[in-house]
């Protein structure tokens, strides 16, 4: 009987581990297409977190459901169950195992964050508890210094300035496979820089310049969204981001430099002057949108 129970438990644990592993592999698909080396790293981390999390979830849920199904009181049975008050060994086990698990998760996360080094490098701590499979993927091209791009936000517009060509744009163009170096600045309130495909996010604090580094590795068009609530037209504060091949990138810059600067089209501004006719309207005072940036393109 005892052996039978142990075998059952082993099957239960085995099934959970397999299912969790499968779900962990699926997890990559729940995120938007990865377009930076950082995004690849976060993908591995997320898959790892989903795997571990699913093991814990299914394990505990399994116990709960088993009890709910098999330990129902029979009808009109007023008696109590056995008075089991605890079990020291068990309680120590379920204290120590979570401690080990969170140490594992924290060191894995540290490892990933260190390799992303989006805010500059961290003290190198080598923790060999778990080598992430993505370790080898960091190309040497990451180390190449790239152009610094100034990102300027205000209520409610984005503008991107390329100082060496003196180009300003409402589109963010980035060369593929080069370390990008953004200088984030806000002219009024706190905003946030967030491209879901890049998996990076950084609040932009007014009157500070915050450097942000990452490496786009997939050519395509993506969406930038303001990620820190910035007032009335917050929802409209998006911009297009293009990751270009080096040729396209240089071509774009050269072409943009030839265009005369004009005030950009701005969604907040047009909605402010002509609000949509919604059934519920408040007529509350709102901050007027700042002058849209003057851009070449």
């Amino acid at each position: 009987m005892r052996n039978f129970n142990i075998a059952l438990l082993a099957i239960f644990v085995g099934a959970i581990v397999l299912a969790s592993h499968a779900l962990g592999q699926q997890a990559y698909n729940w995120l938007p297409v990865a377009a930076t080396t950082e995004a690849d790293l976060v993908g591995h981390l997320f898959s790892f977190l989903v795997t571990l999390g699913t093991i814990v979830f299914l394990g505990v849920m399994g116990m709960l459901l088993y009890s709910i199904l098999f330990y129902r009181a029979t009808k009109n049975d007023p008696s109590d169950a056995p008075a089991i008050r605890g079990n020291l060994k068990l309680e120590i086990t379920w204290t120590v195992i979570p401690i080990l698990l969170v140490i594992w998760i924290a060191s894995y996360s540290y490892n990933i964050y260190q390799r992303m080094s989006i805010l500059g490098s961290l003290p190198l701590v080598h923790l060999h508890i778990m080598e992430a499979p993505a370790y080898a993927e960091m190309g040497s091209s990451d180390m190449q210094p790239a152009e610094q791009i100034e990102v300027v936000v205000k209520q409610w517009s984005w503008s991107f300035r390329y100082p060496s060509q003196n180009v300003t744009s409402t589109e963010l163009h980035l060369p593929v496979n080069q370390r990008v170096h953004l200088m984030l600045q806000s002219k009024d309130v706190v905003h946030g820089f967030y491209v879901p495909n890049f998996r990076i996010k950084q609040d932009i604090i007014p009157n500070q310049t915050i450097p942000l580094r990452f490496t786009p590795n997939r050519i395509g068009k993506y969406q930038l969204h303001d990620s820190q609530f910035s007032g009335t037209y917050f929802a409209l504060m998006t911009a297009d981001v293009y990751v270009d091949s080096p040729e396209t990138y240089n071509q774009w810059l050269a072409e943009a430099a030839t265009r005369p600067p004009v005030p950009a089209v701005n969604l907040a501004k047009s909605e402010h002057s002509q609000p949509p006719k919604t059934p519920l309207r408040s007529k509350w005072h709102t901050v007027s949108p700042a002058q849209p940036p003057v851009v070449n393109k």
Partner: protein
Amino acid sequence: MTNIFIKSASEPEPTNWKRYFSFSTDHKVIGVQYLVTAFIFFLFGGLFAMIVRAELLTPQLDVVDRSLYNGLFTMHGTIMIFLWIFPANVGLANYLIPLMIGAKETAFPVLNAIAFWLIPVVGILLLFSFFLPSGTAQAGWWSYPPVSIQNPSGHLINGEFLWLLAVTISGISSIMGGVNLVTTIFRMRSPGMTFLRMPVYVWTTFSAQLLQLFCLPALTGAAIMLLFDLSFGTDFFSPFKQGDPVIYQHLFWFYSHPAVYVMALPAFGVFSEVIPAFARKPLFGYKTVAISSLLISVISTLVWVHHMFASATPNWMRILFMATSMLVAVPTGIKVFAWTATIWRGKLHFQTPMLFALGGVAMFLFAGISGVMLASVPFDIHVNNTYFIVGHFHYVVFNTVTMALYAGIYFWFPKITGRMYSEGWGKLHFWLTFIGANLNFFPMHPLGLQGMVRRISSYDPQYTGWNVVASLGAFLLGMSTLPFIANIVSSWLRGRKALNNPWNATGLEWTTSSPPPIENFEEIPIVTSEPYGYGESHRLAADSSSI
């Protein structure tokens, strides 16, 4: 012994219902006043959430204008936290704590009554702001400067002004309530009720209210400074004039992370009372569960920066707070495992309180796991300020805490009113709530992973599918409160008379009549053993005959 619901002739008060509208100093009246008031505000908060979800049914802006949307989610969050969960928890604690520790009253009855009467003031201030020309506060419940102090109307009395006033008053009320509850638990326990014989609900309330005392002053101070910045031209937080908006964020989260545990700890307490009673088994590992409450409190004062991983925080800070945040999982995990072990080999009965408790535990498990994921800096950076966060914290504040409040209300309803609720309506309420809550809040996780930012009034069409599911879930959730209200109102008026101890449970509150007399006990009970003596010969652990 059985039916002591005789309108006692000894009571000086005229009729039963009138005292609920008076300045009563009876902790039981105050408890009910808190619960009913909080529930009314819960309906307002829920209504605002329904409008928000109606707007999010489609990608375009087509129900409310942008300012109104921002006002609605700000008021929704504020009301749900400061006028639903906090006062509902304090109400339940007010009712139960003296009964559970064998006391006649709380330590400071007048202070207690004042604390309660501040709550309607807070509510009126917030709801009134809808009628100002400047509108309500619209900067989210965090109210981060500078956006919160832009004041486009230029009026002195504006929505943000009333909001800050309301939050400050709510803070003062909470501190008063906290002083009362902490002192009561510390000083008024009956003979033999040592700390390690207190029910877990008492432990969790104690831990939660200690947090209020220790951390709330940071928020109240920040609110006052922000009010000065907004209205009187100071520059504590204005970035362009030597102020620092990030300091506000630290002060805010120094309180508002622990606030999550102020909300959640009493829910853990409710689970720890309800589950043993319906599993007919002692709470597994009582001492570790009790002490881990206090551990949760201590650790939770040291984790606040996990809300600021994407703010202007340096690397060392992000890493340090990642480590402390993950540690909270340990004492919290202990509790979940203990509840699981309690029902293991129990004799389970599935009345409504048990359904809500088990549903709450299951969904809390999910919330706890997504919480540990969020403590991981690189992952959080991706989902910070997205719907993943909104999903995660609603699994805590609704699917765990609100479920626990429902469990508690059903469990102690016979004690409070002297009548039984209707089991059928209760079960219907549970299933509608459980299904609605998951439909509403689960889809927010995939939406956040896909990158949908929170607090947006219109969104990219790629996110439509899950948003429709969430909105339908929300409307179902709105409907689910109807059977609850019908049940409570009709049972209170006409329900079957309740026994003193209808659940055959072990706490001291079940040794007195239903409802209890003015001073709670005929004789102060003497406690002789640990709580949760299910399956033991001397189950009630109290001895009032030996006095």
